[in-house]
């Protein structure tokens, strides 16, 4: 009965109920949507980060990525590549040779990260082929062409078909080795670092320049499911981190992306705290407003024998109903937002954050659990803060309460 009474009391001042539950509901929507959006951003960021060059995971010789010392080639790479071909979780992989070098055009000079690649395999793990804006991707058989980024092309003042010279230090001896290339294509990977400092040549040519035989420095791997790549207990890491080699997922390759994800979690938490504080104040305010209007009524209820505990219950039930209504508003609004933005997307294209440039529209990620857990936290939280007005109401002396309006 108190439950029913509480519900009717909530309906009593419909405008106030609607306004305050819209406010609370809106807070809830903000929270749910903010999380969905942040997750969408993260998904996009990971997608972009992994699909541009790195792949979901990579294998190197230990310490290679710290020094880029060309001597640190992957141990036992032949076997390794064969094994990878048999892993059912691995969809694609590509071997690479990597060296720092100097690139010279007739007009200027620049430093490069030189990649020796197998074009056919590279196509399936990175975006280099797709990002060619002028000229063409490398042919499978080396024809002495090089791919450079559009920013580097600008620095070198060199276009497709023009000649450049690349200088690298050879393995072991450190002797300089030079080779001349014709620019075969210019790419735009939409990342400053790559467009101004990466260059791609055929792998065999790179191996010759560095004098490393058929050794390689990196294997870029794409799994059937990207989620596997950030799982610490995935068998892959252990199986391939042997013989002085190291297999790592994208979260280790891009620690800044991982810390951004943590930061996002933290900002969701902060947002939640702020919103719940606002919700708390709103709810207390609404309850006190309706309480003050009904002091006489509470006096009557107490006079005719309602126990203090039942008065506490009554107010708590009212706040429960209020938060239920708010939760419904919040969920509906959040779903609506979600629906709209998952159609139109959110345009942050070009914004660089944590070293990764947003390249696609961001779509919110639907996480059903958020539609359960956030409203539930809000309801419980509301009930807790409502204890204050509830106990206040139960302590009102009936005689005083009855006199107030007379």
């Amino acid at each position, binding site marked *: *009965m108190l439950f029913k*009474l509480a519900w*009717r*009391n909530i*309906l*009593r001042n419909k405008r106030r109920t609607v306004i305050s539950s819209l406010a609370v509901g809106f807070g809830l929507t903000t929270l749910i949507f903010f999380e969905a959006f942040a997750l969408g951003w993260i998904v996009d960021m990971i997608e972009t980060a992994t699909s541009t060059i790195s792949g979901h995971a990579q294998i190197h010789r230990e310490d290679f990525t710290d020094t880029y010392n060309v001597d640190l080639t992957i141990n036992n790479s032949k076997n390794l590549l064969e094994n990878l071909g048999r892993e059912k979780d691995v969809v694609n992989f590509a071997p690479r040779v990597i060296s720092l070098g100097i690139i010279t055009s007739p007009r200027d000079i620049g430093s490069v990260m030189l990649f020796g690649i197998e074009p056919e395999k590279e196509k399936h793990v990175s975006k280099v082929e797709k990002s060619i804006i002028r000229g063409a991707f490398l042919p499978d058989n080396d024809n002495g062409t090089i791919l450079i980024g559009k920013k580097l092309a600008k620095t070198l003042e060199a276009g497709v078909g023009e000649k450049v010279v690349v200088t690298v230090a050879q393995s072991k001896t450190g002797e300089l080795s030079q080779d001349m290339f014709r620019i075969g294509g210019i790419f735009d990977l939409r990342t400053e670092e790559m467009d101004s400092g990466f260059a791609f040549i055929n792998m065999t040519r790179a191996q010759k320049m560095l004098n490393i035989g058929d050794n390689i420095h990196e294997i870029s791997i794409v799994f059937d499911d990207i989620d596997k790549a950030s799982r610490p207990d995935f068998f892959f890491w252990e199986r391939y981190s042997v013989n002085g080699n190291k297999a790592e997922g994208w979260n280790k390759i891009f620690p800044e992306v991982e810390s951004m994800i943590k930061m996002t979690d933290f900002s969701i938490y902060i947002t939640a705290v702020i919103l719940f504080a606002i919700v708390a104040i709103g709810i207390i305010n609404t309850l006190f407003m309706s309480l003050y209007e009904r002091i*006489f*009524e509470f006096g*009557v*209820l*107490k*006079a*005719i*024998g*309602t*126990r*203090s*505990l*039942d008065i506490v219950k009554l107010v708590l039930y009212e706040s429960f109903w209020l938060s239920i209504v708010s939760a419904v508003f919040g969920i509906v609004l959040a779903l609506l937002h979600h629906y709209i933005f998952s159609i139109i997307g959110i345009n942050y294209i070009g914004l660089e954050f944590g070293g990764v440039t947003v390249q696609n529209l961001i779509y919110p990620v639907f996480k059903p659990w958020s539609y359960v857990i956030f409203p539930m936290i809000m309801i419980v939280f509301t009930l807790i803060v409502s204890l204050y007005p509830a106990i206040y109401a139960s302590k009102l*002396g*009936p*005689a005083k309460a*009855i*006199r107030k*309006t*007379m």
Partner: protein
Amino acid sequence: MKEIIRTEKVTKIYRTGEIEVAALRDVSVCINEGEFTAIAGPSGSGKSTFLNIISGLDHPTSGDAYISGSRINDISGTKLSDFRRDNIGFVFQSFNLIPVLSVTENIEYVMLLQGIPRKERSERVAAILSEVGLEGMENRMPFQLSGGQQQRVAVARAIVTSPGIILADEPTANLDSATGAALLDMMKKLNKKKNMTFIFSTHDRNIMDVSRRLIVLKDGRIEKDEVRG
């Protein structure tokens, strides 16, 4: 005759900052079971304070109040709530009813608190509504009733659990005199029929004449206490 309410030298002093107001001074009365008593006196003479003290809604500053032999000061908290629920019916001047509950629900409220089963509740509601002359109004909401009808529902709610005492604080103050007289008349009939003790306050001369016993308060003291033929 058995005594049901007794006060011994009840004094109530209200303090608001520096100012002290003695709402009741040394009020000693004894009211017997089944009596129909009017507490009369001008506004501010202490009538409400008296009713609040004999029902445990308020505590005396000094002196004692007893209901059916128990000292009210000794009862507190949940016991006092339950005591009022089971032994006292209240009718206030106005706004007695819970506005979001229908006539039936308002009358049922105390029975629900008492845990009376549904069937018995609806039988009692039906019976009481015919006694107060409100048949057919079961599902009306309070705002759909006239002032006199609302007070009748309040009386129905007060008596439906058959408490020993009905306290009515100026029940007719917001009614026109004919309606007020009719309400008092109904209360008096119920008093006879059910042998319930009725105590009501009023400042209206015409109304106080209805009662057999008349206690007149003035400035918190008993000015007159008479039983008329």
